[in-house]
């Protein structure tokens, strides 16, 4: 039987299927959690300096190829520029030459891109004209494209040798990280050079490790106080009682957590899609409706440590 949608071209064999693979990050992906903290940190930085409107500092986020790149696809406005593999840091230094003094450039690369163009990152460390905040999404591997064996990196030794101050973060502790970035923006303006290594950003990969280690990861919980859940009930009522008014109602009331953390589990309100990354634990829900139950990577990204919890 032929379907009206997507009719198979005549020359195609009956059993030939093309899977359309939507471009998006996995629910708990650490890259997106770091990005939230980078942006939230800027908001807090401006608030601390009591800057408003045009006086505020602005973030420019130059990323690299790989999963960090996917964030640029969403209409979430996280990534501002992505060009070629390994170019995040050096493109960032180009932007610094031509952007305004009120714009702070953060660059981000995966660990694969770090190895691909280590000299571009070294340039950012040595360029005396500007400060640098270079984030490394460290998933220990180039895993999403097939589990390649990586070239080992000792970030602490290499980054320090370039001249960076090294800071390691757990990508899922989003509030702690936002506070950290708030502090780093001031130091960037002081022309300091900082490399932030976000360890264990690939939740997909760590999820497999956890499963193999017999750890059952936890999941998010939304209480009835959630503005979206309440609003969904209201929409149901309107649909039932005043259907003509439905078209004037927005679809959602809040979605802050889902959009902020770029998480399908939250957007779909489906704990089954939750990877247990734990970012929800520190996410500042305006009504405190978000919580988490069970082990999460925000406690630790080490399977041995997680087993103990």
């Amino acid at each position, binding site marked *: 039987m032929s379907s009206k949608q997507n009719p198979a071209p005549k020359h195609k064999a009956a059993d030939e299927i093309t899977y359309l693979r939507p471009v998006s990050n996995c629910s708990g992906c650490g890259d997106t959690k770091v990005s939230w903290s980078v942006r939230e940190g800027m908001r807090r930085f401006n608030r601390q300096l009591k800057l408003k409107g045009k006086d505020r500092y602005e973030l420019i986020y130059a990323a690299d190829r790989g999963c960090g790149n996917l964030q640029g*696809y969403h209409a979430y406005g996280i990534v501002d520029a992505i060009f070629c593999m390994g170019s995040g840091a*050096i493109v960032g230094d180009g932007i610094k030459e031509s952007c*305004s003094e009120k714009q702070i450039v953060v660059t981000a690369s995966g660990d694969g891109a770090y190895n691909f163009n280590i000299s571009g990152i070294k340039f950012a460390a040595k360029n005396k004209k500007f400060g640098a905040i270079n984030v490394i999404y460290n998933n220990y591997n180039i895993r999403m494209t097939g589990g390649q064996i990586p070239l080992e990196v000792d970030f602490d030794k290499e980054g320090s040798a370039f001249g960076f101050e090294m800071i390691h973060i757990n990508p899922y502790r989003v509030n702690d990280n936002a506070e950290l970035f708030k502090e780093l923006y001031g130091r960037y303006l002081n022309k300091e050079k900082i490399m932030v290594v976000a360890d264990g950003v690939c939740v997909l990969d760590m999820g497999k490790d956890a499963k193999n280690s017999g750890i059952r990861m936890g999941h998010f919980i939304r209480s009835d106080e959630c503005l979206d859940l309440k609003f969904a009930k209201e929409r149901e009522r309107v649909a039932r009682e005043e259907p003509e008014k439905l078209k004037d109602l927005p679809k959602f009331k809040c979605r802050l957590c889902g959009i902020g953390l770029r998480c399908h589990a939250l957007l779909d309100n489906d704990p089954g899609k939750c990877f247990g990354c734990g970012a929800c634990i520190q996410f500042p829900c305006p009504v405190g409706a978000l919580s988490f139950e069970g082990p999460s990577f925000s406690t630790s990204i080490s399977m041995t440590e997680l087993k103990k919890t």
Partner: protein
Amino acid sequence: MENIASFDLGRMRLSGNQAIARGVLEAGVRVTTGYPGAPISDVQGSFEQLAGNIPKTNPFTIRVGEMLDQTGYQLAAHWGTTTNEDNAAALALGAVICKADFKKREFLTEEEWDLVYGDTVFAKDKEKRIPVGSRVMCSFKHLGANTAADALRVAVNVVPYTGGLGIASGDDRQGTSSQTMQDNKVLFGFHFRIPTLELHSPSTAHTTVKNCYRLFEELGVPFAVIMNYDLSYREVSVDPVVDLDMEVNHRRKGFTRDPKHLVTIGPHIRPRERKFHSKLMPLFKQKIIENFEFLGNRVTEYGTEPKAMLVVNGPFREDFRLVDDDPALKDRLLKKYGDVVVIESNLVFPQPGALYENLVSKHPIEKIYVFEEGYGRVIYLQLLDLVNRRNLEVKILDLGIPYEPRIYERFSYIDHILNV
């Protein structure tokens, strides 16, 4: 309002490399990047001296340096520190995509502006002005284009944000001081597909470079200028009056968000790539024709019934100007080719097809002789394609040479044209 600072530098000798540097400064370029390597080191080397990164060592940088100090000219220079050409080009990309100022339209009509800028965040600008920022120059030797290919290819997907970027390539086609010979016209024209010109003279290179910035920045596309080994180092005596465009140099800095253009992922770049080749390329050709002389090209008719057309490019063009000064050479030309139309052209890519068609329909031209240097035969192949596509009743003859056959002694390109 234009703000030009003019300085008479007095008589001095300028090389092709220094002529490019002069054109770049006259265009108000603020950010320069590159990676050293013969024969083009002196382009970025001049900027390094002028930016104060290394001492000034020659009359050109010493005198120009005084000018820049007096005017408060802003110049950033990153050279050997970039570590390779790919980084130099990526740094240049970052610097050129920041657009936070505007200039009035000079070359585009309103509809053409819609075509170039209509899908950017500037689309709503009522006066349809050109969003601009720092002009940027990136220079390296021919082999550098292989290293920088990743960044240069992506530049096409980021149009019109890469308008204002100029690339200077020093081609060592005969391998005088390189381990590999290469014709970069192939890469810049056929692979990167950006407007590409081959410069021919230290006396005129600065004007061509300056005018390329003016035109191609507005069209939103990077451009490349190529020099052969001989031109890079050849010096001529000139009396330069240098006109610095301070308005351009002091443009407002700032990055304007437009992730649909600046985040290069499949869903964003596919429509751009299509538009670049099917819509923008014809526009570039049209604008090149409209500004043919502005870009330093010339059509001359010798006699009234020309059956032949000569296209002379690069060093052939440089030597061809001798015909204007030497009646004996002109006689030899007419004897060999009869009445003839000569196109003295910097243009490597894209070729202004309609201009050729027009000349072929106007005159009884039977043969077009192409004189270019480089094994890639980039001009010849484009004209061949034009003739086939448009079914023109004319023969295209490839009379170029792959590279200058002599080292340390200049080859006579005019003899080649007249004797071949």
